[in-house]
């Protein structure tokens, strides 16, 4: 298992969140969140439910803007560039920062169509490369062996665990620099959880992973760094953050 070297971690962080506040019409949801997430690290966000973990995650790829009524203040820098800079392209940002939700949302249609969904519609790669891309993404998501003979079957026939891995493959196929994972395994059986964890472990170093989890043991198994959110006066804030081994206990 290769951990990122010190020099990699001390380089300018992949994601730098500073002074992030999120308000709903009635109250504050997040208060002054500051975080630096290093390149190639696996960064785990812990905290009680309702602390604003998902909200924080959705700020990083600006998916938050699709939920009406929420207001975001502060700044987030991705690879040193502010994602809120005027004239920046939200959709391009979301292609660079993939996301995996708690519940897998597969599109009706074949498995192949699902894996290649982003590649196809973003026009990222020429058509002849598609089979190769699909295979690589499915291998990375630890699903290839199970589906390689039925790529044209409906994706709706897969089990929940397989669907979640399919969604992971779909996100990986567009080669995002950062992958956000919102409790990716909390709806899954132990076997699928194991498979997903295994593929996340293999992605370490190649992608920056930000993972929300409510399971400290999972964070210990996977993460290099952790941050804990807590609720104080009704709004979520960072309670502590640091390297995984020292913090979780």
């Amino acid at each position: 298992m290769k951990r990122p070297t010190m020099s990699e971690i001390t380089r300018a962080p992949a994601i730098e969140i500073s002074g992030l506040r999120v308000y709903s019409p009635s109250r504050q949801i997040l208060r002054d969140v500051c975080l630096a997430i290093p390149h190639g690290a696996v960064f785990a966000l812990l905290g009680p439910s309702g602390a604003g973990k998902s909200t924080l995650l959705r700020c990083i790829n600006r998916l938050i803007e699709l939920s009406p009524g929420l207001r975001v203040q502060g700044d987030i820098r991705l690879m040193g560039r502010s994602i809120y800079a005027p004239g920046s392209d939200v959709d391009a940002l979301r292609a660079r920062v993939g996301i995996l939700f708690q519940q897998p949302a597969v599109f009706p249609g074949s498995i192949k169509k699902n894996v290649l969904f982003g590649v196809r519609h973003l026009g990222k790669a020429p058509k002849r490369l598609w089979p190769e891309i699909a295979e690589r993404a499915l291998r990375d998501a630890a699903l290839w062996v199970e589906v390689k003979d039925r790529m044209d079957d409906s994706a709706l026939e897969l089990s929940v665990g397989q669907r979640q891995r399919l969604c992971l493959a779909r996100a990986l196929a567009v080669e995002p620099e950062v992958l956000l994972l919102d409790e990716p395994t909390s709806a899954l059986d132990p076997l699928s959880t194991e498979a997903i964890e295994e593929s996340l472990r293999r992605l370490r170093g190649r992608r920056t992973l930000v993972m929300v989890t409510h399971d400290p043991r999972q964070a210990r198994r996977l993460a290099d760094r952790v941050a804990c959110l807590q609720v104080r006066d009704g709004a979520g804030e960072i309670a502590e953050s640091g390297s995984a081994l020292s913090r979780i206990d």
Partner: protein
Amino acid sequence: MTGIRALETESVQAQKLARRVSLTQWTSWVLCLIALTSLAALVLVLIHESWPVWRVAGIDYLAGKQWLSSRHLFGAAPMIYGTMAVAIIALGCAAPIGIGAAICTSELLPRRARLTVKILVELLAGVPSVVYGLLGVLVLRGWVYDLLEPLDPLSGDTLLTGGLLVGVMILPTILTLSDDALRGVPASLRAAARGLGLNARETICRVVLPQAIPGIIAAILLALGRALGEMIAVFLVVGRQDNQWPERLWSVTPLISPGQTLASKLGGSEIHIAHGDPLHWAAMVGLGLLLLGMAGGAAAAAFLLQQKQLRHAQAS
């Protein structure tokens, strides 16, 4: 042991109670049967009354291009043509606008603006057809006349006028039902697509619309049924000119001249004249039967599509 025995007898009693048809249940069944047999009665009465014309004219009734009651020539083809023309013009106008507006309300607008539009549309759906007819007679007819001025039309009463008017009438139907269909698509699919970096248009066209398409087609079919059967508004602006069979089926000229639809024919005073003459009467009622077939078919198809989508949504 006795406890189980007691439970058993109790459940047996409960079953007996359930099996005994109560007065409430009996009444409900009778009322339901009355309600549903009204549909059968409608169909049977129309078939029975129009029987003579099917027997005498047969297929010529459908294909015949002449309707001359004095010579007992009954051909419904021009009216079928007129009905279709009006319905197609109406759908051609209303479907794109209605679906576009539904996309706007369900996908793009924030909650409050969406509610406003929906309220307006619900109210628009409540405007009586005779009011549309009045506006058609006093306003739209003049506009169409002005529009067609260079072609030197006889009047503003044309199939086109009828089609435009019906188009406005069915717009709310298409809009609300399409909006419902679009909103039926799970939000998680939208989030997944946006999360991959697809923009709003791509998400709507690639993910939302394909899912909602059966519901949207159902909306169009329901609107079609209404357009086919609309009488009052069409009656007032369509010109009610008999025997307007177009020489070339796809030419535009007949559309900008007066015509007749099945419904406008039935709404006219000819029905009172026809009542004395069995064959003429049968021919008139036959028009109603044709209308019933077309509109009822559209409604049934719409229902089946909606059901299919419902089951589809439950499956995924």
